[in-house]
């Protein structure tokens, strides 16, 4: 069981209010991702749940029990840190066994569980090595192994993949998702990478300046962002925002159109512009188009689409794919 409830949680460091007030429910077994730009308070929120920071006011409940003043060791949560935070003086075996040793398990149980975890994570051949002798991906797996052996109520991940190279990051993303499907334990995952958030989460919590901007499934956030911030943050490449004379035609102060929702034509359309850069990715082509009186608009076309700098193109938003925003950046 791993249901976590935050009520009116507030955190200030000295004079600075990092988290004004947050209410959030995380259901048992859910994979929740906290996403937001750096400094938005997502890591602080995770550390508050972990107990590594004390809340200034508010209540944190784990499985219905008030855990606000419970020390981290007794909250029954496990955490994977960005730096892995492995114990450098212990072998992989001892690293993974450490939480069990602290919990007072006997030696046989410890050995059995460590072997099982090592098996799941492909670490069996490395059990006697020190962390310093492992690659980044292996270290990451040791950190995960250390977290799973104790069968915690929930796993907390603090940007666990940001120290890995792109290829490895993709693999580990998949491994963590599979692990969640296998264990069905609550996972809270902090990242600034919206691709990780979109691909892994059951539920995404978008944070900005210590406030929750929106909570929802990845597709809900993609299709129906509540405001300018979420609309701009979720989706890659970023949504185009157009204001000025063109927005009132759609009965809004600003309109947002995703690059993949623009129809391109050489004959005619709503806006006309000149291709400034065309990026061919093989599967896709990203076009940066300078539109008169609007500025640069990014468009996404198929890999076969051919356009060269200087070409004139017409752009038209697809039906029903225009996000209309008011002067305060709220979606209408």
């Amino acid at each position, binding site marked *: 069981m791993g249901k976590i409830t935050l009520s009116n949680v507030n955190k200030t460091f000295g004079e600075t209010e990092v988290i004004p007030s947050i209410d959030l429910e995380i259901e048992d077994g859910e994979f929740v991702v906290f996403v937001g730009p750096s400094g938005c308070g997502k890591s602080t929120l995770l550390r508050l749940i*972990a*107990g*590594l920071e004390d809340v200034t006011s508010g209540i944190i409940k784990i499985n219905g029990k008030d855990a606000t003043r419970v*020390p*981290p*060791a*007794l909250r029954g*949560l*496990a*955490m994977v*840190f*960005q*730096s892995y*935070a*492995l*114990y*450098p*003086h212990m072998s992989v075996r001892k690293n993974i066994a*450490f*939480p069990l040793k*602290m*919990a007072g398990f006997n030696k046989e149980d410890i050995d059995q569980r460590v072997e099982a975890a090592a098996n799941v994570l492909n670490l069996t051949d490395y059990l006697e090595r020190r962390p310093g002798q492992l690659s980044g991906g292996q270290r990451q797996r040791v950190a995960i192994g*250390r977290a799973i052996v*104790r069968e915690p109520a929930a796993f*907390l991940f603090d940007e666990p993949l940001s120290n890995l190279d792109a290829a490895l990051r993709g693999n580990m993303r998949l491994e963590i998702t599979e692990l969640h499907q296998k264990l069905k334990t609550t996972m809270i995952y902090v990242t600034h990478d919206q691709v990780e958030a979109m691909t892994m989460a059951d539920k995404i919590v978008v944070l900005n300046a210590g406030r929750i901007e929106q909570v929802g499934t990845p597709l809900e956030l993609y299709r129906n962002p509540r405001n300018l911030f979420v609309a701009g943050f979720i989706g890659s490449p970023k949504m185009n925002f157009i204001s000025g004379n063109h927005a009132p035609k759609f009965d809004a102060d600003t309109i947002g159109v995703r690059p993949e929702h623009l129809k391109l034509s050489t004959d005619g359309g709503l806006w006309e512009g000149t291709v400034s850069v065309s990026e061919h990715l093989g599967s896709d082509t990203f076009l940066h188009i300078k539109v008169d009186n609007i500025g640069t608009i990014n468009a996404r076309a198929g890999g076969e689409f051919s356009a060269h700098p200087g070409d004139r193109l017409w752009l038209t938003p697809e039906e029903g794919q225009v996000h209309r925003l008011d002067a305060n950046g709220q979606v209408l």
Partner: protein
Amino acid sequence: MARTVTRSHKTLVTVLAWMVGLAIFFPILWTILTSFKTEAEAIASPPSFLAFEWTLENYGDVHERSNYFRHFWNSVVISLGSTLLGLLIAIPAAWAMAFVPGKQTKNVLMWMLSTKMLPPVGVLIPIYLIFRDYGLLDTLSGLVIVLTLINLPIIIWMLYTYFKEIPGEILEAARMDGATLAAEIIHVLTPMALPGIASTLLLNIILAWNEAFWTLNLTAAKAAPLTAFIASYSSPEGLFYAKLSAASTMAIAPILIMGWFSQKQLVRGLTFGAVK
């Protein structure tokens, strides 16, 4: 442009370093040589460097006149006792300062260091009176206490510097793994800081071993360590250089040997963690 080091420059620096090293070591060497001379040769002018009649007579005399092993034992108890007691207090203190610093942590550290700037003689009388009233004069426990207090600021400073090098996330990981504060310090912090703790231990054993002000002033016969043993040879009856040298050599020999074997750790300790 990178600095170029020529061969002759290197040789010059090496020669200079050896000269400085020898100059520092010369008094110790002279003491050792004198200890093998007769009293007459010890004060002869001009002194002879190596061409004298080597004798072990002084060591025999010193051994007969006083109980070297009792003083040696006292020195061991005082230096080890005060260092271990100091570490026991300093490890949690340095943990607190390094990992949960408050607004006043820096000031507390500076204040602790400032106590080292006070001339010890300034507090001799109050401490002497406290020792007298509590029956601590000429006791090993009294000396252990006073030397612990004197070296505590240095121990805490050194450990603080070493602990600062340990990433806080690793200690947080231990906390998440269910470690209590004691378990965190014993299983994670201490093993990780072991090289630093070893340097601190060695340096403080040496400082305590060589400490002469308090050990001389607060002891008489029972608890007197090797410093008092040496001092007893500069007596009112006159100076016996050869015997004094023999006693000194015997007093510094154990620490010299220990220092020789732990050079590497000591150098690390003396650079206060500045060089990784």
